[in-house]
């Protein structure tokens, strides 16, 4: 079906999908967000994407089961780094389809500027600070009915190899 669509139609469909994904994150609809992922997904926040995982640690390197654990951690446990919780807002630009996209998947690049804020008593140390997180992302999307599912999401934070603060929410 994708093969019959023009590049601008695919770009429009992929963009709309990214906006929808971001909206679920920003609305904290975590289970609905998780449902966008395939059973063999990879959710990856590298420190250095050029190095193999066998020798270099990542900020996040989740296969499908590990991502399930991350969702469980967020929804079913209470932990200090998300008590109180973060609020996010995603701004998405520079969306384009990777020309190397094969038939099986559509590879979409985007730049996403995420603003994050810990809620709670904003007067306290560590809370209430508005934090910009500039990223470039790559989504590998596979067709599911008349929409997509995410087979992989790679998030390259601009300062990924430099000190970070709390990144315990979904990006």
């Amino acid at each position, binding site marked *: 079906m994708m093969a019959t669509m023009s590049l601008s139609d695919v770009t429009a469909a992929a963009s709309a999908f990214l906006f929808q994904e971001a909206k679920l994150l920003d609305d904290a609809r975590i289970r609905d967000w998780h449902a966008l992922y395939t059973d063999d997904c990879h959710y990856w926040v590298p420190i250095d994407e050029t190095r193999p995982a066998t*020798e270099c640690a990542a900020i996040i390197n989740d296969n499908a089961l590990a991502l399930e654990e991350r969702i469980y951690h967020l929804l079913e446990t209470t932990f200090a780094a998300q008590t109180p919780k973060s609020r996010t807002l995603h701004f998405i630009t520079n969306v384009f389809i990777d020309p190397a996209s094969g038939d099986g998947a559509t590879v979409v690049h985007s730049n996403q500027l995420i603003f994050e804020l810990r809620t709670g008593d904003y007067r306290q*140390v560590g809370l209430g600070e508005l934090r910009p997180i500039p990223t470039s992302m790559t989504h590998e999307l596979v067709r599911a009915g008349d929409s997509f599912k995410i087979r992989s999401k790679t998030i390259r934070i601009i300062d990924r190899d430099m000190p970070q603060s709390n990144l315990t929410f979904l990006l």
Partner: protein
Amino acid sequence: MTFVETHTGRNDLPTRDFSWMVDASAKRFRIHTQAYVGEDVYKAELERIFERTWTYVAHESEIPTPNEYVTSYIGDQPVIAVRDREGVVRVLINRCVHRGAALCREAKGKTRAFICPYHGWSYDTSGKLVGITDRNIAGGYDEDFDAPEGLYRVPKVDIYRGFIFANLDPDAGPLLDHLGRARDIIDLKLNMSPVGEIRLVSKPYSVRYKGNWKFQAENIVDQYHFLFVHSPFSKLQTKYGESTGDFGVHKAGKSHAERRNTRYHGDTYGCSQGHGLAFQPESDPENLKQGHFAEHFARLSEKYDEEMLCRIGGKCAAAIFPNLGMIHHQIRTWRPLGPDLTEVTVYPYELVGLDDELNAGMLRSQERFYGPSGYGMPDDVDIFSQNTEGLRGRAVEWLILERGIGSDVETENGDFRGLPASEACQRGLWRKWASAMKGIEQ
């Protein structure tokens, strides 16, 4: 001007005694709020602790061949740790001795010379000044110009099993005396490798938190907090166990009591040099015959007796005063950036000679707990901000560090051995802190 100038003391703050901030006696051990938040305390710490103690600067595996360097800090002073052309490890202040520009702007590299970008003076990798630009032209330097020998060499540099330590105090005693019992932890960790070596291969994790550096030094060997701050992690452990990459490192336990038994086991030490050490040897040697490392331990058993094997195969952690931590398969350093700002860097290491699969497995295990998105470390650092917030309530003057004080036993070398549920480790840090912060005799 020689490589190491005589210390004139002109940088020193006026002498002031801060040691009263540790109120310690047989049954009492309390720390004054100001010891964590005071700007004056922080400045004095840089001079009296970081500039007069052996601090960890780098690991040899980061600079394996001549002319390789990494940058680092001693307290807040920038340094370059470099292996010179002859293979000698030098620690140099990252500052051109002409008018002060920083020389290295990359954190890591290989070079035959350090060339100052400001006026072009050049230095070889031993720090020796090898070129002054336009030296003899009119308006240049006279024949009898008192040219410096080179970059300031940190006067004391020593290496223990690949760990490079440096000390700005030219009169400092030997590194081994400073390490004392902390060597046992380094040895146990490194002896997991069949050749007794580690290598820093992965990029490190780095986080900054709004809190004092001593929160991290206290926390890395704090068994007490684990059961509370990390109880969500234990819940994950109960549900997911090994399946998401734990690699046999953490044992859950279904109840608080069960987890307490796993955690509160072994010995802890508060050392006279300020180190906190936690030893949790494997209590059942049979356990070493199962799991990912079974074959590895079988091979190690040719080298070590059963007791030592249980010590190597168990768990241990250290806060080596003032800036080095060891836990899991990582070297951790913390760098003070102010009384209420600290940078922590976690270097997962590889055990040399271990199967790639095992090294990769330990990397996944660390990914799960550490780093800014892990299921453990972000909670610790969030608590550190919470401490900073709480300590604004300075109407409450003292923090209480008396847990298990009655069970501390002083050993023959002046260390205190404590029970794992106690705060013996933290008391070690503060005893040393108090003696260092007494004030400099003039």
